[in-house]
């Protein structure tokens, strides 16, 4: 139990940040992290885990992206008032648009591509760590990330272009 307490104290803030970045919803993100922790406790992985942080982060990212796919409501509506007030308001509309576009496009990707992209590009884990967490070869992770980047770049550029044209007209 001490082992788990230590993992919880060290890793939980990272898990929370990941889940919140994806879901952008306080309650959903909290539920997601809690579910993953309970799942790992009740059904520990069969193979030994070298990097618990990476493994849990991968689980949380995967679960959060799945929740995002299922969710239809507008993000950020569930934030408590005090949390909304405490957040930085310096975020520009363009950044917000880009973020929402990226999250929307991530939902269109296959689960393993989206998770590999998130872990590598957003959370900045190494390919080896992601491969260990996903239990696949490092080359597979590189391939997944490459395909995801190609798809997202294309879609984002097209989306930005169309939004610019809409603004001009």
């Amino acid at each position, binding site marked *: *139990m001490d082992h*788990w*307490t230590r993992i*919880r104290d060290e890793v*939980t*803030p990272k898990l*929370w*940040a990941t889940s*919140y*970045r994806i879901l*952008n919803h*306080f309650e959903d993100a*909290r539920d997601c*992290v*809690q579910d993953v*922790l*309970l799942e790992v*406790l*009740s*059904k520990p992985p069969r193979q030994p885990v070298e990097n618990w942080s990476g493994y849990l982060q991968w689980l949380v990212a995967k679960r959060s992206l799945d929740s995002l796919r299922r969710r239809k409501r507008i993000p950020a509506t569930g*934030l408590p008032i005090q*949390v909304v007030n*405490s*957040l*930085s308001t310096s*975020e520009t509309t*363009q*950044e*917000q648009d*880009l*973020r929402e*576009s*990226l*999250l929307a496009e991530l939902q269109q990707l296959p689960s393993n591509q989206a998770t590999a992209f998130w872990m590598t*590009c*957003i959370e900045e884990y190494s390919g080896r760590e992601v491969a260990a967490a996903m239990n696949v070869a490092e080359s597979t992770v590189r391939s997944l990330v490459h395909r995801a*980047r190609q798809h*997202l*770049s*294309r879609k*984002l*550029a*097209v989306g*930005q*272009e169309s939004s610019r044209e809409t603004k001009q007209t």
Partner: protein
Amino acid sequence: MTPSSSENSDELAKAIRAIQATPIPECPSFEIPTQVHRPLPQSLPFRWLALGSVAAAACILGLYCLSLQLFQTSNPGIELSHSNAGKPAENASHNDSPWPPGLVSRSSVIKQATNTSMITMPQDPMQNMRNDVAWLKAEYGNSSYREQLERIQDLWLFCSFKKEAREPSL
């Protein structure tokens, strides 16, 4: 107009930075329960142990039922029930019994045969017939139920004939 690859990468990089810069609220506390319900182990030895236990219980139950069946076949007059196990069915109704009236069970017949003298001829012709039946039953007690029934039927025919001869209906 198709955007170039560098523009594509720029947009993606900006989006990644925007997501990384998302303001994160303070991490809430997460409860880790001290006792988590763990499912039963699904390893191969455990499965075999569980299956073996069930099979052994089924075998024991089957053997018990078989032995009961055999006991009842070899002792048709003895009813095995929870309240009257092993005791002769003395109080069984004669309508339900496969035996002719007066023959409740083999044990009672043997008892009757033991108590009745075979040498002295009783005055009652029916008593005589019952004695014959009892003797036959004691003699052929070990034969099968059908054989016993056939012998008894033969004897009854014979006794009826004797009775007829002794006491003509005319």
